[in-house]
């Protein structure tokens, strides 16, 4: 039974949106339980306030980067469509996934960055078409790609975030 594509394997407590193709009654009960737990987490004060904090930061970033040349070096204003896709992206993050730092890129896109430690980082820029350009590093390996966001976190980015979060979690345990 492959219930989750965008999971954070190895990180206890992380709940990603379920994507089940299973049809048995038992699988449906498990799906329902998972969704109930996820709903509880999403509406809990701690989880929602963390996401809201990042959304507030994004809103502040948009205000700061709303005019041409906002950085003093000819940057484009933050694109409204990029902003809206970024909101969609942040809202689709699994409830207890690490949250990114948000900033405006000089080309009008939204930049999301996760830094977990030395040479352990993920950067995603979100464009006006929902295109997510991403790169991530774990040790000496650098990976990159281009994916499009729809109603959930693109699997390649969820995978990268999961790998980095799992590594960070493992290092905390040691």
């Amino acid at each position: 039974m492959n219930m989750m594509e965008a999971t954070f394997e190895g990180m206890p407590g992380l709940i990603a949106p379920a994507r089940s193709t299973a049809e048995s009654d038992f699988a449906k009960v498990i799906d329902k339980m998972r969704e109930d737990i996820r709903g509880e987490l999403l509406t809990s004060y701690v989880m929602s306030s963390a996401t809201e904090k990042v959304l507030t930061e994004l809103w502040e970033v948009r205000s700061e980067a709303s005019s041409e040349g906002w950085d003093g070096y000819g940057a484009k204003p933050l694109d409204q469509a990029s902003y809206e896709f970024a909101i969609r992206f942040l809202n689709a993050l699994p409830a207890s996934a690490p949250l990114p730092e948000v900033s405006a890129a000089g080309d009008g896109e939204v930049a999301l960055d996760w830094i977990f430690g030395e040479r352990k980082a993920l950067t995603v820029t979100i464009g006006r078409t929902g295109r997510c350009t991403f790169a991530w590093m774990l040790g000496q390996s650098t990976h990159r790609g281009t994916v499009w966001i729809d109603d959930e976190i693109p699997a390649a980015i969820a995978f990268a975030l999961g790998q980095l979060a799992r590594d960070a979690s493992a290092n905390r345990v040691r």
Partner: protein
Amino acid sequence: MNKLRTRPMPDSFYPPADGELSVVHSTGLPDHEVWEIGRTHALGDQPGRDRIRGRADVPVKALIDRKLSAIRDDNPFKRHTSVIGWPTSDDADQQKQQRTGICLELSQDPDVKLIIPESPIVHTA
């Protein structure tokens, strides 16, 4: 820089549309002179240029390792340098992806040092 003030952000290195990232050739300069160049040439009345919160010191080797070049042109001011050689592609997505990868690597390179002044350097009229 990131909130913990430990690393420069990847987008700090992303080149503008002309593919020339403006930097300063700081080799051999004492720290206070590097800041002075920033004070004189980076600060201004334009939005976003009211203060300097930090700088990234990038060894040329970090650029060469990524097939970039630093060309000192002393224009528009002495020691002005352009970082060029960013990958190009007919496919805009591909180009952005390649450049984003390089920027992330530079931001995470242990030889690239984030230097933060004791207090932000502020523009004074």
